[in-house]
């Protein structure tokens, strides 16, 4: 199984623990992730706020590079990248005006995009292509007793996700159960983490972060599992400011791929778990087989 891989800027920066856990997990399952040659920033929400046409052109270069690299699906772990690449595909298809701008830009550098390449999230690929049965076979260290709040955030399920429900997604819930974890009922699973507002307008942004943390604590979770680098950063790196404002809400937030790595028995030090502000407690020692 081979995919084209679009990491996005965050996975080389603040979200590097995501890549550090995603790639070994994929390798362990026999999935090859071929990083797209010379990919560029998807543009995220920021470029779309400045210039819609150019935002689509930028994102489309990656789609075109993927199409050139072969018929494999393009996998991207960051929610913003996932949304922007899918959105661009929709805009190219639906708006002749945007399509013309995009093709003119791509044509100038010898590229084109026909619209075929599918843009997918690793969660989708892991559960629907690899399969929970195959994942289950690889679990050597079940996450028994670990209570996990599954947090999906916004942009993977809204508005373009095709693999799960926009209101009550369950793909990660099922995956976590397969790893042996106890999945906590977490009704805020698709609520906004505050996105970049945590840094720019903390009064508003951090309040959203606080609500998510507090609710996970209240529901008895040991850890929050996330699928997005910005969600992870917001839920992990602002505890000082959040708790000073509104009171205790301490709980670690890790990537779902880190939990997979733990369950697969991959070396802990290779999963990027040391990059957390609020570290996850080590799993209890497994009694040595008699």
């Amino acid at each position, binding site marked *: 199984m081979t995919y084209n891989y679009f990491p996005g800027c965050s996975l080389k920066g603040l979200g590097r623990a995501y890549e550090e856990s995603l790639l070994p997990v994929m390798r362990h399952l026999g999935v090859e992730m071929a990083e797209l040659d010379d990919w560029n920033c998807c543009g995220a929400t920021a470029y779309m706020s400045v210039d819609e*046409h150019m935002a689509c052109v930028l994102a489309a270069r990656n789609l075109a590079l993927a199409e050139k690299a072969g018929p494999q699906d393009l996998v991207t772990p960051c929610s913003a990248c996932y949304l922007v690449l899918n959105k661009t595909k929709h805009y190219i298809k639906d708006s002749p005006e945007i399509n013309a701008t995009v093709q003119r830009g791509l044509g100038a550098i010898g590229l084109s995009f026909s619209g075929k390449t599918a843009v997918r999230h690793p969660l989708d690929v892991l559960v629907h292509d690899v399969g929970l049965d195959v994942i289950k076979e690889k679990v050597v260290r079940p996450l028994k007793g670990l209570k996990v709040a599954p947090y999906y955030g916004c942009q993977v399920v*809204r*508005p373009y996700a095709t693999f799960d429900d926009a209101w009550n997604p369950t793909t990660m819930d099922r995956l976590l159960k397969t790893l042996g974890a106890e999945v906590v009922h977490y009704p805020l699973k698709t609520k906004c983490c505050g996105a970049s507002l945590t840094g720019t307008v903390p009064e*508003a942004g951090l309040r959203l972060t606080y609500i998510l943390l507090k609710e996970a604590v209240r529901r008895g979770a040991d850890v929050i599992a996330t699928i997005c680098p910005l969600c992870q950063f917001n839920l992990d790196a602002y505890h000082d400011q959040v708790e000073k404002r509104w009171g205790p809400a301490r709980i670690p937030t890790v990537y779902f791929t880190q939990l997979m790595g733990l369950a697969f028995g991959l070396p802990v030090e290779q999963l990027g778990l*040391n990059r957390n502000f609020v570290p996850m407690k080590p799993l209890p020692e497994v009694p040595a087989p008699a």
Partner: protein
Amino acid sequence: MDITRRVRFEAERVRGFGKEIMAVPGCERLFSCIQCGTCSGTCPLSVYMEHSPRQIMALVRADFKDEVLRSNSIWLCASCYDCTVECPRQIRITDIMYALKQRAILEGVYPKHFPIPILAKEFAAMVRRKGRITETLLVMRLFMKANWRAVLSSWRQGLGLIRTGRFVLRQEHIERRDELTAMLAAAGNGTGKTKETP
């Protein structure tokens, strides 16, 4: 007690503004709005906004351009798309917010010193120059442009990032930067724009 008029005057309208926004790809269904308020009820940020999303829809449609473009509402939209999937009239409210942000930046009427539009512009500039974003460098540029005092309140977080090996000082960039420049220049030709928006 100061009494201020809460309803706009007819004369404050900029005729045709609503139609212009509706012509932006993604915003086609703006005029189907039934003012039900589902968007405002769903929006996690509406409690902080000068005008709720429902009001923004009404104001845009009624051509109150200045009112909309100068409000903090459009910049507080975090693009969570909750309103878009909940809207019973299938209006892509998030995309309308984007169209309004683009317009506000183009016309330079966003709230000054408000960090969100500055972040958007700095982000776009870094992508155009380097092809990729280095988040820590972007945030430092934002601090310099918007609010250098914020550095003081964030020093602990900065130290945490260094401790966890996430503080990246080396600017990420793509190899073929000239390709990016050529692509954007070629795409910009014929759109009526002489150069890309600042």
